[in-house]
């Protein structure tokens, strides 16, 4: 990125409720069994879309059949637009970052065609399995008129999405960009996490869902905080390479700037060494649940609202890439 960008507003939808304060609330959780081995249960915190305050989107015609992910995203993005009614929606871009994507309907659609027969696959479900469908619902309902990208990757794609926003702002393609990270929960993902050994060692984090969003603009005195650096592209293929990538990533930042402790999965052990020589910040709180790109968004929002005047927030991708941002208040 060439110039700092400003975070002008934020939005949150999480199991604790809506708005940034919900991130600090006690989240309702339950134990959910893995499918392949029901004896193994994991702690899970999910959002009840039928309950207030999440249910305000349920009766919108376009959202009646939409995926949970669509609902999480629209709630987070709507909070931003409600906080900043002054911005020109025709000049707002939207970048989404997703690790899991539309998992619930993808699993349901594939289960249907493999059990009922391919001829009976559901034409209602299929469009909702497409990765960019949730953001399409969001821009349609909220009348956002700028460019839209749905970006995928491991959790580090949050920093890649922030970089896309910085690019659009630098090129004057738009006046503002909303970057949103969101995920939805399906029990099959517990088997994914288990198979890929992503839970990590005890105390293991639970799995969660929801969305977080930030409104970005060119540097402004009205900002909640500024993003002064975005560093990404530290790739790895195995855990030995991941340790080196984490070292190299953090070496990019001034060692006097505290680093937020954001590792909530197998990367916790990985992060221990490179973080040992750094001043740590607990501005993102102790990670109890992992919601992937949504967690990255929430960690960014927590850092914005923390007392730290300057902090590095790393996004230690689960399986391929790492990135980090520097936030200045």
């Amino acid at each position, binding site marked *: *990125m*060439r110039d700092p960008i400003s975070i002008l507003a934020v939005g949150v939808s999480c199991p604790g409720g809506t708005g940034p304060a919900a991130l600090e609330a006690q989240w309702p959780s339950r134990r959910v069994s893995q*499918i*392949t081995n029901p004896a193994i249960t994991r702690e899970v915190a999910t959002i009840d879309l039928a309950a207030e305050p999440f249910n305000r989107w349920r009766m919108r015609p*376009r959202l009646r059949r939409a995926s949970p992910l669509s609902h999480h995203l629209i709630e987070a993005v709507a909070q931003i637009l409600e906080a900043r009614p002054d911005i020109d929606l025709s000049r707002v871009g939207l970048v989404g970052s997703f*690790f899991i994507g539309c998992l619930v309907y993808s*699993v349901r*659609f*594939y*289960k249907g*065609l*493999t059990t009922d*027969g*391919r*001829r*009976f*696959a*559901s*034409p209602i479900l*299929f*469009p909702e*399995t*497409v*990765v*960019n*469908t949730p*953001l*399409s619902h969001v*821009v*349609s309902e909220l009348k956002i008129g700028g*460019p*839209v*990208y*749905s*970006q*995928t*990757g*491991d959790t580090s*794609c949050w920093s*890649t999405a922030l*970089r*896309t926003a910085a*690019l659009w702002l*630098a*090129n004057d*393609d738009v006046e503002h960009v909303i970057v949103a990270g969101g995920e939805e929960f399906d029990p*099959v993902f517990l*088997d*994914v996490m288990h*198979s*890929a050994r992503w839970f990590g060692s005890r105390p293991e984090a639970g799995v969660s869902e929801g969305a977080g969003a930030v409104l970005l603009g060119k540097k402004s005195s009205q900002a909640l905080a500024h993003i002064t650096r975005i560093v*990404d*592209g530290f*790739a790895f*293929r195995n855990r030995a390479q991941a340790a080196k990538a984490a070292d190299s990533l953090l070496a990019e930042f001034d060692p006097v700037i505290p680093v937020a402790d954001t590792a909530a999965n197998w990367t916790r052990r990985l992060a221990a060494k490179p973080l040992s020589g750094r001043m740590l910040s607990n501005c993102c709180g102790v990670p109890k649940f992992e919601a992937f790109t949504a967690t990255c968004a929430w960690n960014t929002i927590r850092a914005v609202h923390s007392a730290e005047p300057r902090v590095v927030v790393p996004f230690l*991708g689960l*399986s*391929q*890439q790492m*990135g980090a941002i520097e936030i200045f208040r």
Partner: protein
Amino acid sequence: MKSSNEVVVTGWGCVSPLGGNTESTWSRLVAGEGVRAPITCIPVEGCRVTDGAEAVMPDLDWLPKKSISRLSRAARLALPAAQEAMADAGILDTNGRSIFPRLEMSLSTTANGMELGEEFLKGVWAGSFRHQTSRVSRYPAHQQVADLQQNLGFTGPAMVVSNACASGANAIGHAADLVRGGFADIVLAGGFEALCELVYCGFDCLQALAPDQCRPFDTNRRGLMLGEGAAFLVIESAVHAAARGAKVKGRIVGYGHATDTHHITQPDPTGAPLETCIRRALVQASLQPADIGHINAHGTGTPFNDSAEAAAFARVFTGNPAPRLVSTKAAIGHTLGAAGTLEAVFSLLALETRRIPPQIHTSDPIPEVAGWLARPGEVLEKPVVLSVNLGFGGSNAALLLAAA
């Protein structure tokens, strides 16, 4: 153009149903050949339509056998296309590794290594633990990113855009934006898509698949044909290309993108969002519609897409000589996340060779574009080509490509 950094293309490569590399694909495409055959690489029994266009899978004999067995079908398509593009641009060393240790990528796909995800789900439902780790770890798009980086010898930032069928044009446009904005000097841009059961059955259940040949812009069009493939381009700033003595093969002069909120699977019938994209690309390129000699259309062959697209073209080019129009999807099928990248390569090849692939299988064109469709042996007479893509969710994108 308005930007300070001129964006050039110095290499490209592709894998398609017509061939395992650019030369074989292009020679058959301009000869008017097409592919349509029963699908054998994935299970489609029970679907209403069971034909499509499978890619010619190149040998990956430059990779260790163990590595090949671990690759998803999408990665097997992406790797040779990327290797060809990098070799064409002269950025591979004698060992087949990138001469740039850090090389940014801008990629597109919609289904990733989906067949591995499907196998994982079947395994979960069967209570099986065998091979589940390799399946789940090789499915996501970022694993195809890792396959490219590991096997072609580089690292660096990678953006994967998944904007349905417009993703490929978005990936190239994003790469051009990165160069134009000074965020990168050189970018490997590309798209890849492998046929998979979930997506095939999805289009089948929407009754969007053509029961016979795909006939873009025909009054009797009955749907699309699914295909698979990959295409990559090396995109860099003119200054960077000149500094390393690279041959400029084409230029990216304009990019426009917009979202159509009309319906989740159907475009605005007026074509207005696509028209917006094209006009944005023209403004960025400081060009007029009359400057465009050829359009590589999205042209899926579905009733809704082609009529909306034709309406947009008719408005943009009113009062101007009609550009020569082709949808290459009639020949290679709709390759979804790879479509925009394959069609950009075909557009650049048209500029380089001055040959336009003929529109095949269309005998009774719709009125808006009657007389526009390219015939066999046509020559490109103007040095600018427009390539457009539309996707589910309303993603629209337009690229303007110019001769070197």
